[in-house]
């Protein structure tokens, strides 16, 4: 079993746009490789290895040293290719004549469990020697995989859903079971793979794992034909979606990204462990303004997300709350198959029980979501429009009779988001993209007027079609005023409609404002730069919402 097989799988997956083909490729790979390699393959493909062992810069410098290539030349190549690992791979091809050594036939397991982790135990000289040796002994087809794993940039167009489907097909077991098994801390080993493809479903093994999350779809007009009474309405919070699980006395916090985050929120784990019942709750974690009883901005939550074992002072400065939407399991009884409206009754019942009987007051860290009761659809619209006032993104609309299935099932849950805020801004800088957009100018900065001056207020990357990107790229090359490294300042001429979700004051930006999720929604070729908005307009937007 060799790395060659995995390299081939990567090429196949990378050059296919068909989900069915990808599932077939994966299935065939799993059929013809060792459990341990399969286990690592799944680990890699689900993006669990995102550690950067060596930086792209380090790799480029090392290559430059070994093969006496000027660094500027490698940098020029990088601008074309957009990925350090790939640049080195392509350049190594040019060096293949200098390879004399016998090619090694290393397995994926050996590479990932030994060769690469061992690099960190070596001093710089040994490390460089080892990498050089790998370059010279690995078959050419494996270079890209090796370099990408080294630089923590291994990615291929395979979703966890595709992997789930392929395993489900392989062993003929429901996708939901596989999805459940893949959740959480999947560690690569022969046992974990065997567990994954075990044809017997063992309830015990599933004990600490979350259920697959049910996701909302964007609202469709047809919903308005239904009676408003068929639906439950909640605010759509902008926090971290989570399942809070307590089974056999142990509390676990699982994000939708399948991360166990107990360590980041110890106060919640501690408080919830005092509750007598076992349960699985679906909800949202937020930093909460207890005085005004509204959510704080997402930026405050960011201060907590990546911090493990936060100090008491951090806990006080950024107080969190878990808002439960739904009860999925209670005292070992899976109630996902009962109707939402009945689950809600259970949720309310248990919440009041816990509030009254738990020695420790839980209401400073836990609550259930308030429901909204619009009297008709226009009223729902009015609620949605008011959502910015309480720092939410809109409404979540759930069918009262729905069961809790998994994934983005149609016709069960909808998100009814408030329209984005918009400003027309002038393109003033462009920067070269990376990855798939290498060689094109795809990272843009936009400015608003402040009297006679254009002040940068946001950067955006997304929103243009590929054809528009190419067209704009051409224009950028022709209308550059100055180049600063990869950045070009441009003749102010092009106006774009920029949409964003939030706007707030910021000391870090010259404009004095910061916006969240800025993206391009329209190329306003019909507008001249004098038609663009001013910073005053932006301040006005801020006033309107606070």
């Amino acid at each position: 079993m060799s790395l060659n097989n995995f390299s081939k799988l990567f090429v196949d997956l990378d050059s296919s746009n068909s989900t069915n083909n990808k599932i077939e490729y994966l299935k065939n790979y799993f059929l013809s490789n060792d459990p341990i390699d399969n286990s690592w393959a799944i680990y890699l493909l689900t993006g669990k290895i995102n550690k950067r062992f060596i930086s792209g810069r380090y790799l480029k410098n090392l290559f430059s040293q070994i093969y006496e290539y000027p660094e500027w030349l490698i940098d020029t190549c990088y601008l074309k290719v957009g990925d350090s690992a790939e640049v080195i791979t392509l350049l190594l091809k040019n060096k293949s004549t200098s390879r004399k050594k016998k090619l090694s036939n290393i397995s994926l397991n050996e590479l990932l469990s030994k060769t690469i982790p061992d690099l960190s135990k070596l001093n710089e000289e040994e490390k460089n020697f080892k990498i050089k040796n790998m370059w010279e002994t690995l078959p050419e087809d494996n270079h890209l995989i090796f370099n990408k794993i080294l630089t923590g940039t291994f990615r291929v167009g395979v979703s966890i859903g595709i992997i789930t489907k392929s395993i489900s097909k392989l062993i003929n077991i429901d996708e939901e079971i596989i999805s459940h098994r893949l959740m959480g801390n999947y560690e690569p080993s022969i046992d974990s793979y065997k567990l994954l493809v075990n044809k017997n479903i063992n309830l015990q093994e599933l004990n600490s794992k979350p259920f697959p999350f049910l996701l909302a779809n964007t609202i469709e007009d047809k919903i308005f034909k239904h009676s408003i009474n068929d639906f439950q309405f909640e605010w759509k919070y902008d926090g971290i979606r989570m399942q809070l699980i307590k089974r056999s006395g142990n509390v676990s916090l699982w994000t939708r990204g399948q991360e166990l985050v107990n360590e980041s929120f110890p106060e919640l784990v501690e408080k919830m462990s005092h509750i007598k019942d076992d349960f699985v709750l679906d909800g949202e974690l937020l930093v909460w303004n207890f005085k005004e009883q509204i959510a704080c901005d997402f930026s405050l939550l960011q201060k907590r997300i990546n911090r493990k074992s936060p100090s008491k002072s951090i806990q006080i400065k950024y107080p969190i709350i878990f808002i439960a939407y739904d009860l999925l399991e209670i005292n070992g009884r899976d109630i996902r198959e009962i109707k939402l409206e009945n689950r809600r009754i259970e949720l309310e019942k248990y919440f009041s029980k816990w509030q009254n009987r738990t020695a420790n007051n839980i209401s400073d860290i836990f609550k259930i979501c308030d429901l909204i009761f619009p009297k008709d659809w226009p009223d729902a619209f009015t609620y949605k429009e008011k959502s910015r006032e309480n720092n939410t993104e809109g409404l979540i609309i759930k069918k009262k009779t729905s069961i809790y299935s998994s994934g983005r099932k149609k016709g069960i849950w909808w998100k009814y988001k408030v329209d984005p805020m918009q400003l027309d801004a002038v393109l003033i800088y462009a920067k070269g993209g990376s990855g798939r957009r290498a060689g094109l100018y795809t990272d843009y900065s936009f400015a608003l007027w402040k009297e006679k001056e254009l002040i940068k207020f946001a950067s955006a990357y997304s929103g243009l079609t590929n054809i528009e990107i190419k067209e704009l790229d051409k224009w950028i090359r022709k209308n550059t005023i100055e180049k600063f490294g990869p950045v070009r300042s441009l003749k102010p001429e092009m106006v774009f409609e920029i949409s964003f979700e939030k706007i707030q004051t910021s000391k870090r930006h010259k404009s004095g404002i910061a916006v969240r999720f800025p993206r391009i929604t329209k190329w306003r070729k019909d507008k001249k730069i004098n038609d663009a908005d001013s910073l005053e307009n932006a301040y006005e937007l801020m006033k309107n919402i606070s």
Partner: protein
Amino acid sequence: MRTKQEYLIRYKDGNLYCELADIWIDPSKPVKKALITHAHFDHFTFGCEEYISTKETAILLKERVGDNIKIKTFEYGEEFKINGINISFHPSGHILGSSQIMFIFAEEKWLISGDFKLQKDETCKQYKIVKTDYLISECTFGLPIFKWDESKKIANDISKWITNSPEKTSLLFCYSLGKAQRLLNEISQTNFKGNIYSHGSIHKMNNCYKKLGIDIKDTIKIENKKKIDELKGSLILLPPSLSKGSYLKNFKNIQTAFASGWMSIRALRKRSGYDKGFPISDHADWDGILEVVKKSEAKNVFFHHGDSESISKYLIEKESINVLFFGK
């Protein structure tokens, strides 16, 4: 050291020009006298009073644009004189009829590489090393990230790509002159033995190659109303211009690929919108350009077409080659 104006060949209005002979090389607008290195459209423009090329280039050009042009032809290696300057064509290995052009005046040799490749290609004459004092070389792929695999390997990859999806119709996009014929020649030597169809524009060039004595596998000209079942498991060669738009709606259950040197870069491959990319080029890769610079023994080198900055800087720094620049 002479000034730019005194060079035998220089850049004028974006084209290579020899003032002493009053002759242009692959001009992009109508002139009196034009030397044509090969029959690709980006090297040809209508309306010149007189064209001069190899015999093969002339025949290919006439096939493409009609008989209504005045072309004088010469064999490879045959010298002719214009205003006292000796001029001759030499094989450049790019496509059938493609040539380098040598200018000799007052014992000074100037060589224009034209588009060239060193790789083996049975559909045209192999690149000939010509010694010169001044070399004007193309550098379309003038970065070391470009290193071509043997065309045999690419042809085998293409063959596997088709045979691995027997239920599908495989559409391979490629330039209709040169690349298509080279691919046909290579693919006919692989394990793929199914039907090959080609688009009218490619079919025409195939016939032209055959007339000129090049052994090209027979293909079926693709008709618009082919039955889908008939096309299952076969290969269709199409020009890249048809990859976008409604033409593809004529087919069902297809897979697409593009054969081009640019396909060696993943980002370009992804962005191109084709399912797959086969990196095969009729231009020289980095090593190919360096080899030609070296073997030509040129003391002075110019680059044009492509990222000339990088390769120039590299040769100056690493190989101490005297690289010169045309003023624009």
